[in-house]
């Protein structure tokens, strides 16, 4: 979903930083921060071949929009977006792109950081590692390594 200042989407195809920057580059902005989460191949001694994502799509979209609305209230956002991929994401490919354009850079950094941190707490998307040896594992399913959760 996309309007003049916010864009949020769950995609099955690969994500394009190019189209995100095209959307964000706005003459009212001076600073644009873009965060991209990509599939990391190595975590300590574990070799990830790919990630796959499960998603409660309609709720994830609602939560993404709510996060963007929060950011708009807290920072002078000119444009912002959250795009998340589902399904299989091979190594070094983007699974999430978050971008914020604001008049000054400090706000872009802060809002972008806020959005990715909150996404990882609130948005119903789950990541499964497929390791090089063929084994699979959902990431931290009991939230031991996550910040405390509140409804």
């Amino acid at each position, binding site marked *: 979903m996309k309007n003049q200042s916010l864009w949020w989407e769950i995609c099955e195809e690969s994500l394009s930083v190019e189209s995100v920057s095209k959307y964000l580059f706005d003459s009212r902005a001076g600073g644009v921060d873009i965060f991209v*989460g990509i599939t990391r191949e190595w975590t300590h001694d574990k070799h990830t071949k790919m990630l796959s*994502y*499960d*998603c*409660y799509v*309609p*709720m*994830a979209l*609602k939560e993404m929009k709510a996060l963007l609305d929060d950011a708009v209230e807290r920072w002078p956002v000119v444009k912002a977006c959250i795009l*998340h991929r589902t399904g299989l994401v091979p190594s070094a490919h983007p*699974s*999430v792109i978050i971008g914020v354009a604001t008049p000054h850079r400090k706000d872009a950094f802060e809002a972008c950081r806020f959005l*990715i941190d909150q*996404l*990882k*707490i*609130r*948005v*119903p*998307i*789950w*990541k*499964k590692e497929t390791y090089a040896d063929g084994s699979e594992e*959902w*990431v*931290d*399913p*009991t*939230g031991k390594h*996550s910040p405390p*959760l509140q*409804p």
Partner: protein
Amino acid sequence: MITFKILLFSILKEKVGQDTIELKVASSLTGEQLLDKLSSDYDSIHSFRSVIRLAVNESYVHESIELTNGDEVALITPVSGG
């Protein structure tokens, strides 16, 4: 009769072996009561009981919520997007 559709994702979907549970109960109940019931019906839900957040009709809610007929309930284990 009250009917709910309960959605499962990620590890719960895998462990329970299905992505939806249809539940019919005789009388109204709270989120907490629903989770207790599912925990006693499904071992895998039981083992995640303490970390499940409840969403009703696509929004997070407290377990104290009174569920109504036709609600879409989702059991949200800790998320890990990004």
